[in-house]
């Protein structure tokens, strides 16, 4: 897939995260993987269709997930990834993907997005593409979030 398609997703993070009190996210690494990604513990999958068809997975450790949820909830301590914290993360993935969709439109790809599915587990894999997909690791101010982007 075309590597320039990661930019709308990275830009979405750079746009949205500071609005919620995060530092401006920095790109740590970018790579290409085949078919299946291993969940880091908490994974949010959002699908998109129309001008482009694919999936984006926001993949993170439980610790990163708690850090992000806490920050989103005005610094409220998050001991467990409870329903409220999970709901906040779901909302975040929705906002990020909607923002990325707007960025994709500016590149000439109009896309519709699905509702997010948040998946939690100790040891599971997610196949998001029949071929290769792109992995971008972003630093959100001490904790990382991995973006897996697959476009057909």
């Amino acid at each position, binding site marked *: 897939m075309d590597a320039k398609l990661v930019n709308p997703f990275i830009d979405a993070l750079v746009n949205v995260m500071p609005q919620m009190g995060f530092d401006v996210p920095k790109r740590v690494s970018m790579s290409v993987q085949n078919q299946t990604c291993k969940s880091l513990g908490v994974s949010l*999958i959002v699908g998109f269709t129309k001008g482009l068809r694919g999936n984006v997975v926001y993949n993170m450790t439980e610790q990163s997930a708690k850090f992000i949820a806490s920050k989103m909830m005005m610094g409220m301590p998050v001991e467990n990834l409870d329903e409220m914290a999970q709901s906040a993360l779901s909302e975040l993935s929705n906002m990020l993907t909607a923002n990325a969709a707007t960025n994709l439109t500016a590149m000439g790809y109009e896309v519709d997005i699905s509702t997010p599915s948040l998946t939690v587990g100790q040891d599971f894999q997610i196949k*998001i593409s029949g071929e290769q997909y792109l992995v971008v690791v972003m630093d959100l101010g001490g904790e990382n979030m991995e973006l897996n982007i697959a476009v057909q």
Partner: protein
Amino acid sequence: MERLKVLIVDDSRVSCSILQNILSKTNFGTCEVACSCAEAIDKYQSFKPDIVTMDMNLPDADGIECTRRIKDIDPSARILMISAMKDASLIAQGRSAGISSFLQKPVNPNELIDALMFLCQDISDKIGELKDLYVDAFVKVLQKSLFSLVGVHSEVSSHLAVGNYLDVDGIAVIIGLTGMPMGRAIVYMDHDTMRKFACVLLGKESDAELTEEEASDAVEEAANIIVGRGASTINDLHDSEMRISPPGTIAGSNIRIANFKMASFVITAETRLGNICMNIGFAEGE
């Protein structure tokens, strides 16, 4: 659509936990508790419940007075009185204050659910509409597709999902639904059913000939076909433009998938290969 929100107004911890326990097993899952009239007014404004259960005896006012104050803030508030006392005089006073329905403690769970469903009929009508418009189409498509793909007959049933979580041991294929309505479909089954299903679909003589990757790919492709057919059927029936995203396939054990702000339905097909299930969820407000 979100699960319906209930504010329990009762100064007895025991009564509150009994009600919470009953509600946790239903679609009226999200609860807040207020132990006094003042707290009830505060929580009504911050939590914005779909329905309030009201006790008669509160430390700072009675249930009738508390109802009046809530009705002052929101004349359309739905209030159900749940009290140890239930007599003609109390019912008359309650009705004049705007209480729609009365139950006596101890509460029978079925009576409580019926009363809540009745009071929230306008909300439950939306659930009925989603079921009629979309879920029933997926029920038929699942049954037909299983027969055409692997030649199995199935008993298919559907019901409203309880809670925000779906627990999966085996495989789950998540497919996004975009357009109107927006949501997602998940086709899932346990590991053993996945292997049996894949053997039949791929025409393998024995399980030993099948790799894990082939098995999960077979289920993924079948899910893609089933959800695609379902969406097309809905588009034809309702002149809508539902589209499906490519599948995201999750394999493993003890996986928990959460969906918030959704009305979701579980469709189960019982087959000789095992249970093949679908969870169809639609975003709130669609």
